[in-house]
């Protein structure tokens, strides 16, 4: 399994809404790696809350997190945990 790429399903009721998008962008911001989130054809910068909101990922949506750079694997793990926990909501 590629540790710098992960497919995730948005589990929480409100989806990737303000609170969740804030948490994701903040988490991504802790890493130097270039991180993207893809939904279907659409790919955005994981550090951009605007981009994340524009994905309009509601509950049950599949997203792909990919990272490039020194701490790419750690970044993907951290974001994976955050999403799978339902953004600690």
């Amino acid at each position, binding site marked *: 399994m590629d540790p710098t790429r992960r497919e995730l399903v948005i589990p929480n009721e*409100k*989806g990737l*809404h*303000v*609170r969740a*998008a*804030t948490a994701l*962008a*903040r988490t991504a911001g802790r890493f130097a790696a270039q991180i993207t989130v893809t939904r279907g054809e659409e790919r955005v*910068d994981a*550090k*951009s*809350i*605007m*981009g994340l*909101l*524009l994905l*309009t990922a*509601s509950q049950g949506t599949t997203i792909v997190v990919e990272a490039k750079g020194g701490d790419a694997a750690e970044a993907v793990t951290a974001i994976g945990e955050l999403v799978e926990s339902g953004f600690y909501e």
Partner: protein
Amino acid sequence: MTHENLGIVLQGDGVSEGIVLGTVARWDRHETLVEHVRLPESLVNAEVSRFHDSIARAEREIDELYVSLTAAAMGTTEGEHLGLLDAHKLMLRDPSIVNDTERYIREEHLNAEWALSMTLKRLESMFAAVKDPFFRERGQDIHHIGERLMQFLAQSGDEVPPSPLSQLPQGAVLFAHSLSPAEALAASRQKVAAFVIEAGSTSGHTAIIARSLGIPAVVGLQGATDVAGDGDRVIVDGFEGEIVVRPTQYEEILYGRRANRAKAVRRAVRQNRTLPAETPDGFSIVLKANLDFAAQAPHVDALGGQGVGLYRTEFLFLDRVRPPTEEEQTAAYVSVLEALRPHPVTIRTLDVGGDKLIRFSGPEHAGLRAIRYCLANEELFLVQLRALLRASRHGELRILVPFIAAPFEIREVRRLLAQASEQLAARGIKHAPNIPVGAMIEIPVAALSAEHLAKEVDFFSVGTNDLMQYTMAIARDTASPDYLTNPLQPGFLRLLHMITRAGHHAGIVTAICGELAGKPSFAPILIALGFNELSMTPESIPLVKEVIRRTPRSEAMALLQKFGNMSAEEAKDYLDSYMVEHFPDIVTPRFRGAPHYMR
């Protein structure tokens, strides 16, 4: 009914309590005029740092707001709204804003304002194209932070740009489509009298600020800014979530009374929340609340109630294709019992049929209401009884059976309760022993045979609305002349007295859970009649308690005695003037001549 001579009434969500009369001040966010400038190469770097400087200052402002709002939301559960500020802070540094703006400045030698407005326009149009309204409305946030950045750019040095809201007139009621946290705070510092906000879901921060400062606020009022003009008079009722634009004189008087009453309630709560409902001559009475949902439970304690005298179960049954399961019902009853513990909760068994329709009732039972319907549908009733028994271990349960006409019905209920208990025992489920069973007295024949009924039940609860309706032979939902709905009819008072007397003789509690129980002016009469418990909407408890605490029972008895020789109209006038004289802080003189209108 014509409404042409009335003000425009709009209904929204009241998010901060209070009632005020003020003047409309509309807050239209005007577009800042942006200048387009081509910069010489030499100024580009300075322009980029000017842009970054505005971000840093906007960020600092959000940090300061965060501190004031956290203090305001302290001890409440409103912290989640503060998350919006965190999001705004992230947006200020968002690569899609910073990088694009910077690129426009560097590559096209544009001034920061023009570069930023191009970036924002592009982002806003992307949000506007989003289908899901839930996400689309976030475009507002971009607008809010963009506006603020523009204002910071327009200002040099460390000066904080004055908020455009700083010129509000005294007593202004601020009408806006939406307010950013900064605007809401700025307005509150301008001593704004009330907030009226068109947007609903994005107004959390406005609600926090309003509540913490005691400013009435109503949100979710679509079109409010279209019907109101600057300087219009407006009434804002933050309790009911209602506003009246350009009210008539009558409406102003009616709302004035509502405002006075609201003040009286708040004062009474402060004074008597933890005090007993006891007359100066030592007669105690128990005050309880009528509830429809367990979620209302915290109000009961906050307003000084001692449990629930009527928990209606109809809402579990209405509007559904199948009746709720035993598990669903058990969960609902458990939650209300646990929320009120250690206070008792009286749960009323299903009261449907007649004019209260449920979807799954078969045509064969059309017309049968409440206990009659339940006895005709034993299986359905047994499900509810089992759920009640199962829930009984989670608090102090009392079971109230509505629409009782004859002792036979109570015996049937007890037989079915025993059957439900056996069914549970077979499944190894235990329940609390000796759960009190009471009869709702709301049919005249039940009042007349109260002595017989008292031997069968553990308590009485009088439903005054139905008892009045059936006693006076008036139709529900039809306007009747006042004298037919006046509870001070000597015959009606006598009927109530029969019930309390029968209760006393049998040594059982006689409660009242109809509308009458929540009217402060009737409290003396109900004390005199000998009721042991009054159950009402939670909001009525403080004022009723205040009247009880200041009315000696001996005086109430004398009042009741006088009524025996008066007509209902004379009695009503007498009671009104008695209340005005003794409780000027609670009741206001009846306003005669107000048009009768309904909303």
